[in-house]
């Protein structure tokens, strides 16, 4: 079951086409990475899902239902450009934002107390945001995003502006929310920052979706049968089935080599050949990072 389906979304601003026929589907309770460089169209897509702007073409379905104003209550959105009312007290601010998301006053009160306790901010509830440290304000911002227990959490560049301690804290909270049933969309241009978190990935470049699928599938499809080997004692002559792409002399007679397999043998075949010739200290398949995949696609696209 998909919590969100965006079908053939297109959006243009004056002379600029921000999104061109983009479709994504996001399974329930997954962590979905919406990746792409700055200006690719990620924020436009997210704003469409949040009903801040409207698509020119295409439709968005949430839980199979066409996007409508009631859906704002089940979405939590942390925009890239974010902030809080500086002159407003923390407690009042969270109450206001929770009520805007359709929560009742009493319900919001309980939830605010729970979250402030959890992130040890209770004593700050009566303070104005401008009197808080940046780290504390960030936590408040996060609470404001999740206070209404959204089924779908959309985080646009979530870790930019968060210090590493808070970033980790937020990561843990996000995983906990996912375990409780929430679905999370990460949108970022810093692909390495979310690589280990995401199960599904869609890549957007220049207003178009260029890749989509589970992280595993994508990585598998981008395997190139390359292996990285560390060994002691030089050797030569692997035969025509293998090509030595690169060798590096490390120290004390240790070497590192990248070997390309040409005929799809399994790794054991290569390993057995190596063992016969040298002393193997490490052997690992070279799996491209999401970033590498992105670059190879974009560059491939440029060549086309």
């Amino acid at each position: 079951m998909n919590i969100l389906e965006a079908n053939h979304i297109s959006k243009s601003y004056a002379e600029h086409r921000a999104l061109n026929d983009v479709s994504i589907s996001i399974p329930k309770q997954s962590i979905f990475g919406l990746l792409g460089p700055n200006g690719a169209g990620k924020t436009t897509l997210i704003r469409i899902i949040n009903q801040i702007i409207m698509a020119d073409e295409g439709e968005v379905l949430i839980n199979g239902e066409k996007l409508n104003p009631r859906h704002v209550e089940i979405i939590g959105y942390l925009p890239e450009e974010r902030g809080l009312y500086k002159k407003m007290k923390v407690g009042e601010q969270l109450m206001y934002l929770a009520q805007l998301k359709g929560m009742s006053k009493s319900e919001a009160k309980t939830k605010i107390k729970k979250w402030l306790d959890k992130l040890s901010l209770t004593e700050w509830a009566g303070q104005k945001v401008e009197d808080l440290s940046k780290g504390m304000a960030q936590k408040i911002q996060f609470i404001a995003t999740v206070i209404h227990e959204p089924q779908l959490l959309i985080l646009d560049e979530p870790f930019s502006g968060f210090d590493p301690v808070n970033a980790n804290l937020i990561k843990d909270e996000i995983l906990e929310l996912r375990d409780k049933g929430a679905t999370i969309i990460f949108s970022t241009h810093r692909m390495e920052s979310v690589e280990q978190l995401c199960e599904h990935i869609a890549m957007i470049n220049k207003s178009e979706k260029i890749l989509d699928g589970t992280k595993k599938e994508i990585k598998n499809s981008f395997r190139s049968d390359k292996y990285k080997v560390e060994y002691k004692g030089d050797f030569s002559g692997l035969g025509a089935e293998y090509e030595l792409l690169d060798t590096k002399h490390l120290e004390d007679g240790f070497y590192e080599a990248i070997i390309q397999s040409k005929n799809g043998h399994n790794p054991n075949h290569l390993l057995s050949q190596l063992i016969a010739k040298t002393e193997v200290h490490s052997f690992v398949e070279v799996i491209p990072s999401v970033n590498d995949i992105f670059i190879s696609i974009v560059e491939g696209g440029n060549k086309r």
Partner: protein
Amino acid sequence: MKQIFLVLKREYTTRVKKKSFLLATILIPLIFPAVIFGIVYLGTNDGDSSKEVYVLDESGYFQDSFSNTGYAYTFLSSSLDEAKEKFQEDDVYGLIHIPEIDLDDASKTRYSDFSFYSKTNPGNQAMKDFEGEIKRKLEAVKLDRSGLDPAVINSLKVSVSLSSFNLSESGEAKESNTDLSSAVGYVFGFLIYMFIFIYGSQIMQSVLDEKTSRIVEVIVSSVRPFQLMMGKVLGVGAVGVTQLLIWIVLMVTLFSVGITALGGSGMEAMSGQMPAGVDMTQNQEMAANIQGMLDTIPVAQIVVSFLFYFLGAYFLYGALYAAIGSAVDSMQDAQQFMLPIMLPIIVGIISLTFVLQDPHSTMAVTLSMIPFTSPIVMMARLPFGVPTWQLLLSMAFLVLGFIGTIWVAGRVYRVGILMYGAKVNWKTIAKWFTMKV
């Protein structure tokens, strides 16, 4: 609707809870009368510190005849040069020099030979005072010499004042009072101007704050931009109305407290201070007069219309202020858009002078129909009596006007609030207006 109300409530409570609101709300009704009283007091009691003036009278007519109590006169009997020297040395306000004059031979008398010396430029009032003194004395002397009976001269003088009446269609004549109508018209027109200016800027500031603090995108993921804008305009407006109501209540209370105090023991004390000839009966007459004057202007119509134009003008301009706030990134950037919006209001205020001179001229009627100026100009015209059809038409235009500006502002606002660092001019705003979102 619930969302608009939540936004409205936040705008309202955060403002009303501010200390500055409390101070302004309580102090202004106290300060305002105090300032007016102060000005009046200073104006009437200027003579307390009577200025010293030297008089060098070579004609001999004026000995001890200067009587204006605002000044202390010292008569000199030296030469002009010595008098000037003495004037330079002493700390006195001025020196009046009256040369020898021959009142019998008009051809030898040059009244422009009188001079006034002072260390700084004398005020208009002082010059008029001195000229008056000299003129009065010379006239008296000449009258005396002519042998005419002063009583005959006085009996020749006639004082005329026109009483003005409004003649209604039924032929009923109602006394009208032009001065009072002008005053009332001006005050109400000006109140609306002030309100637009103060609370319009507050809306703009509020929109700008949300933009610069970057919270606006969080908010518009829960609320439609239009709802946010309307909540803001209504919330700030509610603050203004609250303030206005408190002011009215405070002022009425102060006024009635003041009247009761005067009506009781204060009345006797006051009549004791009054110049001879003004007694209690005259006080009551005065009160009756004021009552009569109030009857000449359509009070109920003015109050109801004031509320209408007050709110209408606020919506009309408030929406535009919101649009400007959404378009810019800082208060400085806002300046370039402020002027064109303020222009109609300024035209309205300036035109008041002419409108009050002739409240039924084509210009006055036209300006009281155009929604951008009608709240100010129509309020100024109302005390003079405005045909009902004109009033209703003007109100209808105003409603269309503010629906129009709210619509336009809403379209600019929804795009503007999400635009950062864009170079904004009228062309970009027009583009946002037409943009599909």
